[in-house]
């Protein structure tokens, strides 16, 4: 197994990035550098794929410290499995798959521990502290909050498809590939999920339509 020599963030920021770990490096270059024990290369990968993991994990679990933990776990699983990554999929798909699996594991744990009340607390608290940029006006924030809440209302298998297809922007075929299910299953789940979302988001969709 490759060994990561993790240096402190201060020493990282002082030293100049090498070609193998600069933000401009390709995924393959970064992976090679990580396998050579370069911690800054892995940090660059984490920063590059944080949006992917965040939208997947927060989309599945809702915001809060639990989602942050699962996001970290997903990144650690990525680190542990980089040696097995053979480039058969692109790294974004690979990372998404890891994030989805980590989220599903977390959902199972959550169900086992019947943490529904605690997660609702997280959710309500987080509604007042949106992660997105602060320039957004109140209406946009309210809309985003409503959309996220609507997504969390969906059953797990519908939410999985919605997160990958509609939040992450994967195609329906990529979604089927990531979830390892038939393309037709993705289409039918997506259809049903959209019907439910359409009901939950009707005020906004109707307002847009009339404008």
């Amino acid at each position, binding site marked *: 197994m490759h060994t990561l020599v993790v240096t402190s963030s201060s020493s990282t920021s002082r030293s100049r990035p090498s070609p193998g770990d600069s933000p401009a490096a390709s995924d393959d270059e970064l992976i090679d550098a990580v396998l050579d024990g370069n911690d800054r290369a892995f940090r660059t990968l*984490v920063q590059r794929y944080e*949006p992917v993991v965040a939208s997947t994990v927060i989309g599945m679990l809702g*915001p809060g410290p639990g989602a942050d933990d699962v996001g970290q776990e997903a*990144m650690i699983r990525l680190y542990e499995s980089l040696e097995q990554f053979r480039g058969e999929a692109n790294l974004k798909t690979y990372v998404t798959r890891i994030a989805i699996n980590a989220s599903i*594991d977390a959902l199972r744990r959550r169900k086992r521990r019947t943490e529904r009340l605690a997660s609702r607390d997280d959710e309500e608290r987080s509604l007042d502290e949106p*992660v997105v940029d602060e320039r957004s006006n109140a209406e946009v924030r309210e809309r985003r*909050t409503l959309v996220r809440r609507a997504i969390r209302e969906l059953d797990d298998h519908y939410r999985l498809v919605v997160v990958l297809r509609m939040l992450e922007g994967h195609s329906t075929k990529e979604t089927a590939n990531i979830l390892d299910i038939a393309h037709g299953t993705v289409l039918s789940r997506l259809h049903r999920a959209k019907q439910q979302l359409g009901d939950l*988001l009707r005020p906004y*969709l109707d307002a*847009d339509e009339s404008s």
Partner: protein
Amino acid sequence: MNDHRRYRLEQALDDSLTPDERDEFEALLRSDASYARQFERERRMHRMTADAAPRAFDAGFADRVMGRLREAPNAALRVDFDAMLMRLWRRLAPVPLTVAVVLAGYNAYVGPRHLGAGASLVELLFGLPPVTLDMLLGL
């Protein structure tokens, strides 16, 4: 809406229509107003959800990941190991459980021939008859 139209609509939202399919789809939109409205509605829904996608964890996420790696570089392995043990338990446990149930049934049916009067319930149910080398050779 039939399956073919549904599929075309998803393809259009995927932006994966071939030029011929796009022509066919646009003709469909022109000829069926309710289909066109449905397409527009779903496109708005896609935009709305994509816009609501959380794009970051709280500040310092990369630092927290690197910190966890520094403190417990094999944490993920432990998680995997726990998961592997759980999977093994689920797969293998039915075998000894079935054997135990069959043995208990057998003992209950045959009775405690090889046990004395002071045997406990556990011995009565799960006690194995004494097997000697001669008996095995006799088989």
